[in-house]
């Protein structure tokens, strides 16, 4: 696209690159904000149905589909409070740190073939590295609030995220090893074809690894049953006790976009990325390279596949949240250190052995 703009339209290089950068940023921002709106509404409906309630029914006519927008307007109108003893600068900056980390991680995430803001040679590594920074905003928020609840929540979050990064990293290494690259686009391309080509079904070990990844991903984005940092029965609201209004909603948006991000990462690493369970496009004899309109159609199909998988992942997380009770902090640590890490290590060795015994797959 950049070459097209430079050569056909005759735009100067810096303008083209700035335009493309702004375009990507706007698209990602809208995805995060719009996704959060949809997912918050879905969370309300899912939780209501699980608890045998109806959830929002009236806002916007049927199904309460405008509920999140109404919530957003309410949040905008709320008073922006700050504790008197808080560290003012850090208190203001903390929500943006969380949000920016989540945003920056989306830069490396491909949504379909060629639909990636920046195709990185080390995409997986970059996404995981940036995603780990989100906790920094939480810790800053907890510290800067000058409240004991907040500090407790932040310290729990720090301990939890730092611990769960270990098994999470080990799980992510397995698909990277199978694909032989850290480039997310190539990893997804290698799983094209029928759903049996997905790394989830590559061998028994990767199947287990996927579920360990799911557990660690839920823990690393701080969702129930691992939401110790905001355990409302013990810590009022944890790290965001002192936040209100728009600042609080930034944390909320960061949480929902991180959920989408880890689901998208799972879709690419284990579930074939934008390749559907049935290769419709290649059965019809189409591919990304065949013609301008058919190529665009195939890409849109891939985008729909990817978004569908990632959304299913988010819905799965909601299902878990409203089904399982919250763990205690020691149980959270036990789950990580005594179960997830050893299982991930053994499965890692197993997948490696499988690759060694059956070099071409079985």
């Amino acid at each position, binding site marked *: 696209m950049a070459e097209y703009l430079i050569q056909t339209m005759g735009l100067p290089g810096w303008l083209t690159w700035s335009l493309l950068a702004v375009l990507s940023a706007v698209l990602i921002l809208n995805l995060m904000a719009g996704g959060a709106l949809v997912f918050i509404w879905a969370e309300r409906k899912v939780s209501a149905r699980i608890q045998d309630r109806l959830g929002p029914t009236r806002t916007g006519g049927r199904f309460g589909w405008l509920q999140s927008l109404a919530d957003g307007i309410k949040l905008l109108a709320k008073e922006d409070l700050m504790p008197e*003893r808080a*560290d003012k600068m*850090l208190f203001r*900056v903390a929500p943006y740190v969380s949000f920016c980390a989540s945003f920056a991680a989306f830069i490396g995430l491909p949504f379909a073939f060629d639909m990636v803001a920046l195709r990185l*040679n080390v995409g997986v*590594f*970059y996404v995981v*590295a940036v995603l780990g920074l989100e906790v920094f905003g939480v810790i800053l928020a907890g*510290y800067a609030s000058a409240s004991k609840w907040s500090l407790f929540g932040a310290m729990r979050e720090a301990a939890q995220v730092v611990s769960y990064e270990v098994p999470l990293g080990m799980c992510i290494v397995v698909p990277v090893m199978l694909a032989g690259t850290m480039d997310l686009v190539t990893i997804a391309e290698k799983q094209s074809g029928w759903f049996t080509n997905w790394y989830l079904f590559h061998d028994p070990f990767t199947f287990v690894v996927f579920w360990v990844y799911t557990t660690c991903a839920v823990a690393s984005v701080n969702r129930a049953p691992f939401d110790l940092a905001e355990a409302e029965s013990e810590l009022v609201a944890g790290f965001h006790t002192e936040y209100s209004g728009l600042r609080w909603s930034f944390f909320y948006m960061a949480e929902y976009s991180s959920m989408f991000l880890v689901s998208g990462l799972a879709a690419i690493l284990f579930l074939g990325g934008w390749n559907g369970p049935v290769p419709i496009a290649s059965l019809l004899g189409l591919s990304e390279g065949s013609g301008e309109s058919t190529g665009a159609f195939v890409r849109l199909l891939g985008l729909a596949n990817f978004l569908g998988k990632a959304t299913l992942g988010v819905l799965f997380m909601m299902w878990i949240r409203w089904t399982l009770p919250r763990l205690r902090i020691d149980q959270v640590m036990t789950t990580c250190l005594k179960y997830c890490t050893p299982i991930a290590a053994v499965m890692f060795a197993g997948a490696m052995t499988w690759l060694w015994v059956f070099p071409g797959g079985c």
Partner: protein
Amino acid sequence: MSSSVASLLPVLAAAEGGLNWQGFLFLLFAVLACSLAVAVVVADNVVRMSFYLVLSLGSTAGLFFLAGAEFVGAMQLMIYVGGTLVLLVFGVMLTAQEPFVAIKTPVRDKLLAGLVGGALLAVLLQAAVSGPAWSGSTAEGGNAVASSSGQPSATPLGMALLGVRVDGDVASGEQSPADGQVRSGYLLPFEIVSVHLLVVLVGAAYLARSKRRKSSGGQGGGASTGGMR
């Protein structure tokens, strides 16, 4: 830190012939990294310090991404920025007896630190700028930062960390493969750094623990006994 100061110079030299966007971004990240590094020193609260440090290291990662060194940039984010996070947690747990402790440095110490730091900076700056690589790239200017020959790959670096060098001789001339010496990769430095980090970790755990039980004695135990327990 001083390396990014030094690397400003060729771009500044190229800026006279018109600033391109790479040069602009380079200047942006470099100025951010340097000014935030100064802010780390000036700030008097440990959490603010770490916040500035994270931003400064993040800007340095941006410099790496700008240079096309994605692996190093992601490493920078993962290890240094993520490491600062752990540093922050330890720092707060170890130093903060009450919230928002301001660390006041006496003027004499500031002078002394400025003297030592300035002298070190001067030596490093001189060494960095006078090196052959820097003076060679001055002719190319800012374009040399962004232009990369071919698609860079992280595979040779990863193999080198495991002890196998699959890449060609980058700095040709110093040690050629012809003299029979096998280039052994970066396994030894990698392991040394790992052990170093482990020692730091054990030491931090010891410090955090000994505060609680002062009466148990054992002053000469040091980090190793702390780890044994």
